[in-house]
């Protein structure tokens, strides 16, 4: 398992509502860019794939060099995709899922620092 991961929660209409980069590797200056780009491109695939399977966790839908994109597709509108690089997204996603505020407004950015900390803690656990 790689040492770095990037989570992006993407709402419907493909808007990233949450982004987190976690991991121990030194952050490359272009990493945000890169990861965004890769995940963005992966959405094409996810959209194709999501309809063909009933599974929620789509492992390694895309691969860009050594970066692996996995997706946890939720059944709810609020979090249609949860894309992560390199990590066991399924586990993290499921736990993330439980972190969400019930009063969360669908479609808006997740800005809660609490959520962020939790996600990072989770990621550390699984990385």
């Amino acid at each position, binding site marked *: 398992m790689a040492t770095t991961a990037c989570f992006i929660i993407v709402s419907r209409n493909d*808007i990233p509502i949450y982004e987190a980069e976690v991991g121990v590797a030194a952050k490359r200056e272009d990493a945000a860019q890169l990861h965004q780009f890769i995940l*963005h491109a992966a959405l094409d695939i996810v959209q194709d794939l999501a309809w063909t399977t009933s599974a929620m966790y789509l492992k390694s839908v895309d691969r860009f060099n050594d970066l692996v994109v996995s997706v946890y597709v939720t059944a709810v509108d609020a979090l249609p995709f949860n894309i992560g690089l390199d990590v066991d997204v399924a586990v993290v996603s499921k736990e993330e899922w439980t972190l969400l505020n019930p009063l969360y407004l669908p479609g808006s950015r997740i800005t809660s620092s609490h959520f962020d900390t939790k996600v990072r803690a989770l990621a550390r656990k699984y990385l």
Partner: protein
Amino acid sequence: MQNTLLNQTKESLQLSPKFEVSACGVGEFSVGHNNSNNRTMKGNNGYLVTMGAPSPRSRPACTCSNRPGSVRCARHGYVVPSERMKKRVASKEILRRALTPPPPRRCEKRSEEIRFFMNDSDTTQLATTYDKLTCVGFISSIVVSMRNNTSLARKEERHIHMGGANITSSLLVFVFVVVNAAVFCNGGKTSSFTRKPEKTVEMPLDSDVFEAPAGYNAPQQVHITQGDDEGKAVIVSWVTVNEPGKSEVHYWREGSPRSKKKVAKGHRVTYRFFNYSSSFIHHCTLKDLEFDSKYYYEVGIGHTKRQFWFMTPPEIHPDVPYTFGLIGDLGQTYDSNKTLAHYESNPKKGQAVLFVGDLSYADDHPNHDNNRWDSWARFVERSVAYQPWIWTAGNHEIDFVPEIGESVPHKPFTRRYPVPYKASGSSAPFWYSIKRASAHIIVLSSYSACGKYTPQYIWLKAELAKVDRTKTPWLIVLLHTPWYNTYDYHYLEGETMRVVFEPWFVKYKVDVVFAGHVHAYERSVSAKERISNIVKGHWGPVKDQSAPVYITIGDGGNIEGLANKMIEPQPEYSAFREASFGHAIFDIKNRTHAHYSWHRNEDQYSVEADSMWFFNRYWHPIDDSTTIEDVSDLWPAVKPAFEARLPFKQGSLNNKTRNPVLVEKLPAEFILTTDSRLRSRFPQEQLLFWFREPYATIVLVTCEDLDEFKTILKPRLKLIVQNDEREWFIVFVSRAHPANDKASAMAKKVYAKLEVEFNTKKRERCCKYDIHLPESNFWEDLESKIMECIRNTLDKRVQFYEEEIRKLSEQRLMPVWNFCNFFILKESLAFMFEMAHLHDDALREYDELELCYIETVNNTGKQRDFGGADHGDDQAALLNPGNKALTQIVQDDSFREFEFRQYLFACQSKLLFKLNRLFEVASRGYSFIISFSKSLALHERILPFCMRETWVVTACLALIDAILSNYNDGLMAPDIEKRFFHLLGDLYSLARVKFMRLAYLIGYGTEIERSPVNSAALSLLSWPKPAVWPSVPADASAEVLEKEKVILQTTSRTKPFGIQRKPLPLEPTVLLREANRRRASLSAGNAFETFDGRQGITEGMSPSQKVPPSSIPRTNSSPGNFDGSIDRPMRLAEIFVAAEHALKKTISSQELLKSLSSSEEFEQKYLELTKGAADNYHRSLWKRHGVVLDGEIAAVSFKHGHFDQAAKSYEKVCALYSGEGWQDLLAEVLPNLAECQKILNDQAGYLLSCVRLLSLDEGLFLNEERQAFQSELVRLAHSELKDPVPLDVSSLITFSGNPGPPLELCDRDPGTLSVTVWSGFPDDITLDSINLTLVPTSSVDEGAKALQSSTPNVLHPGRNTITLDLPPQKPGSYVLGVLTGQIGQLRFRSHSFSKIGPADTDDFMSYEKPAKPILKVLRPRALVDLDAAVSSPLLTNERQWIGILVRPINYSLKGAVLYIDTGPGLEIDDSHVIEMETYAGVSENDDNKVQKDGAQIDSLNYEKKVERLTLHNGKIEFPNWASDTPSIIWVLVRAMSDMLSRGSSSVTTRRESIVDAMRTIALNLEFGVYHNQIFERTLAVHFTYPFYVTTRVTDKCNDGTLLLQVILHSEVKATLTIYDAWLDLQHGFIHNGQTEGRPSSSLFPLVISPTSKAGILFSICLGKTNGEEDRKQQESILNIKYGISGDRTIGAHPPVMDESTKVDGARQELIFKNAITLQRPVLDPCLAVGFLPLPSDGLRVGQLVKMQWRVERLKDLDEKEVPEQNDEVLYEVKANSGNWMIAGRKRGHVSLSPKQGARIIISVLCMPLVAGYVRPPHLGLPDVDEANVSCKPAGPHLVCVLPPALSSSFCIPVNS
């Protein structure tokens, strides 16, 4: 070149016919494949079967008894190979042969050209051959092959094998055996000409043939042989017996003068052999002779001269004819003499003899009597002195007799018979070669070692390669020991040599191999070893047209006699054998044809016991064993019709799983049996390459005669069809003309016979074709038959292959397993399927093959050659199976991965294309490229520099090209098509990335846009890792300088707005470091690494990074540190140059090189790839990929100033990113877009871009940059715009309502809305105006309402609050809509209130934003309630307070005004004040649940307030305190009523009219902030008089006094006090007594509580009416003076006095008047009748009863009134006669006193008649008016009548 070759071919073709014509004598042709012995051979011959007798294979075929494998065989001089070794060698050899590509005809040519050439020539050749054949009638049988679209030649190539040759064709071949009954030849191939075995006897030494020439020392034993390589020299040998003599030869050319005699000096040898000493043997070589000339020569110079002559051969030329004689194993018997003589006198006149060994048989004599050598030489002198004999060493030349001390082999032979071996580079005289005329003759020694690395082996290998068939078309090999031999002698002796050399013979297309040794004659068909089971190695020769013909001609006639024991039955490959003595002639006609004939000694010359035409293997590879003759031209006659049927429209074949599959348009070709393709095959390949064999055999037959049929045709056909291997059927061609009845009848008969003979129950094997009038169903019949044949053949072959494959697969895991074998079988199967158009199955085979390959390769773990190092390998060959011959790759069972995998994929893709499964091609191709690229990466160290990248680029492009060229729109299902395009896009982008990497390496990095996509792709892609990084070529310093200049000149493109972002990286690590590390690590260790660490110098080296000027000198100088060392790190420019040079070496594709040659070319290619990728992604609906790539195109356009296109594409990209909110990515692209728009003067767009830039996350840009954006925006807004530009700033200016509950407004109320606005601008920004729309959430028709901001707006960064006036809105709830405003000319609008503004559509917005209402306008409701405060009636005609209860319902009544308007009958006393007080109705609060808690608290702190107000113009203004609390307004009113209250008597019921008593008040309350709320209400108020009066006369006293009871009902809810009451009586009544109409005063005051009654009695009496004045008073008036004590909150209350009239303390007395109508009594009865009671014991039926009435006179009888009446009263009893029986008088008069009070009783006896209640009789007074009778009405009176009494007799009591 092509043309010339072609011409040559044509010439040769033109040449050949004449020979054919001459040779077309119709003779016996042996038929190779129709051998009737075939079957039996298989059964009982040990040749193939291993059981029973030990297989010949198991005994190594050395005649000596040495054990194989170890010891060197003394006799044969070589190691007898062991069984295992042989097998191994053999199988390898066979495989290699199998994989051998077609021998290149022009080796030096490039393969493509050759192929092309071959195509043309072969087709032409074949075509012409057909024509020629048919017209000459030479070919006796016709093979028709079916052709498909590919050319014949290509097919042939395919046949030659998959070994990588061009496998393109798919062809089903049919053999047509055309049989013509008329010309029927012997089909057997055995000519067992038997002769009695006779022991041949050597001629005695004193025979004349041995006679020595006369004369002293006369030269004897003269013989010549060729003396050099090409025939320009002759070796002359002779023997002098007496003395040595001169070794001199005089010679001269015929025609030249004798004086020009030349002299050649020779040398002389002698030798000893045991006890024999030789004479003087002279050898002399005549050199430099001229070609084709007759020379005379003389030997015996000085003693006895003898003169001879010889012909030199013609100059070497391919088409020169030449005739060779063939003699072997001659010996010196009588038969030898016959043979020689027969040869000498042969009219064909051999010009030279090829002698195949065993000359003298001297060794058959004791001690190898060498005198016999002498005698033999004298014997043959008569021939060999005049023509050269080419010597071959046989076993009888060995002369190895160690027991007598002769241990040097070949001593006599070498001494006596020199050969020109040195001229051909041989090291020993036993193997050598010569060229003579058009033949290249190779002589081999069967008794010299021939294994690998032996001199013979090495020599032959080199020699065969030297053979130039264009000069010497004929390649002839001479051996002694035959390789193939079906006699019982010397069986398999030649085997060791065969296994070694045979592949070469096949490979080099040796035409014929002559051998001796076996003393018989035998000709084989072209044969070659085959292996029926590769693994077990069972083998045997099979017919194979590519192999040489083997001829054993050891029948010279020696002492050992004939070999007449043969292997029976005759094996298939043996074409002709006969144990007879004879010789043969090999007559070369031209380069293509040679005629061979064998002549028995007994025969005349016209008889050729065996003959055949040889077709040159190289120039004219046609089978030499023609089979069946088609003299009657059947085939040409039917050919057009047959071929018109091709390709077969439809056929049903079985696929691998034996399921029928319908194949359409099955390509096929008819070929004749003579077709070269059927012949030029190696026999042992036949099974392996079985798929190439024809699939159906059609026998064309015609016959016009029954006898002919019986005697000739039938047996012949039987013979043919016995061959079970073929699927055959017969087509009977009827030539009978329909008009000719007889002929057609005969044809029918014959056909019927035919059917009887050959049709079986299972299968119809015959069909009839009428040439003149084909039957209609014939063609269908034919096709179905053909199809059936094909199907069966296919099945059979598939089965065979599968079986083989299965066997092989079982051994998969064994070490001996050989992938090559597997591969061959598998691919054969695949190819067969492909030919049959069963592409699916073929594909499956290839798939399995690939799987197996990968498994094998991975399993064995051997270090294998990867391949790919050849030139041109960088161009992917994944679609071109014929790119490389696999043969070269298959070495030692190793398939080079590089070539092999590409080959496999190419095959697969080809099939997929055929199946039209483009998608699969694409998907497989893509994954193949990916996986293969990985393999390349693994082997990158051994591959050329950047091989991997180059390969991927070319592979992708090739794949794309191929796919697109096959692509037809609309054939795929939509979703598949989507994925298909996506794959194409992937391919494109893969190529693109690799291409960019290449470009970067050679310094075009600056051309590459540093966009996210490029960065992502390239920065994660590792650099190529060659073993050594290429170094700069020596002479490239100029280029380096140039590059350096370019690097220095390159300035990074400045971003618009002066954005200082760091450019994205394009490299995984810095190239400089990488390159130098790769070099450094090789030699200098980590020296550079330390340098790198210290200086960090490489950071600045990347050309496109912005290099601070100060660092440039540093960079340039830094390499100087290493100037002294050899391993100076390269500078960047050097790296570029080095890479470029290396790439030029690597890349063979001109196109790719060109693309990399300059930056312009690069860019063009780059654009092409990018566009391709983008287009395909778009088509696959992968918009993200597509759009992103559009951005790349845009970048290029941008760079070139095509801002239009750039802007368009950029817009797409930006729209995508921003639509989804990928900020980081957007930040990269957006400035570029802005720049474009700026340049294009697209102000609107530019503004929008600025806004977008501003609205990106703050962290993405520096604050200064953001300010720059803003200032740009503002500048534009204020200055340059001509027209107002609408702009969406949703993401920048956002707004929301205040937190908390929405503002609630009642209907029609205005308000003020406060909105929070966030500004995303980095600075304050002044907005000229702000409008905000409200959008009602519910009503759709209602448009948005615009609100205007009231305050000027300067938005600070961050949060601002603005307030907006809100006009009255319709009811409903409202959300914030759009914020619009203006900045200068710029009209902006903003939708959202969330920070990140999403898309513009309302649709989206309404979804995305939850409707949080900012404003709620309530529906119209009662805001206030007006009600009458009092429910009980008020007093009429009095000034009464009327209370109006004003109850605000959650709404402030501040400043409310109440308009009061009274209805009729009511007036407001407006002079009086109006009181207003709070209203504390707790109970009401409870009733009205509207009140909330707060209100309750209010009520607790209730504080009563009273205020006096005045009424102005009917208007009351509310005080402030009354705005929220309920209050009551007391208004003084007076209900006017001029009617008197009217009482009612007891007789009349009360009639009440409430309406009369009601009065109305119209109220109109105006309230609200702007008095916009109006509440109207009309109140009804009940007014009433205080009392309601009822009267009744209670008693009439006798004295005429009437007591009038007056009852007063209280009508009000107040206590009334009556102070006085009096009655003003009407006329006719008077008061009685003194009280003057008043009751006694003691009654008063009388208090009446609410709702109670009081009564007053008045005593009155009737009075007289007097006077007129009394008349008018018709009613009595009751006057009551009363007081009232009530509360106005309840109801009636003391009326308010005027100030003026008010008396202090005075009792407020009110007068109530009521009218009462009294009526005088009108009439009195004067008689009363009463019914007296009946007796109490009841009435009984039948019992008399006395009814009694009393009649009483009530008053005096007035005379006036009743004058006629006296005291008599008439009565009458009336009774129902049914019920009563009147016993007395019914009617009668009784007297009654006229005085008042007189009474009388009338009794009447009656008897009831019925029981029950009955009406009693009634007494009437008929005379008196009823009115004067007071009588209780009798109606209700009923009496009870009992039933009659019971008879007592029924109830006598018993004595007791």
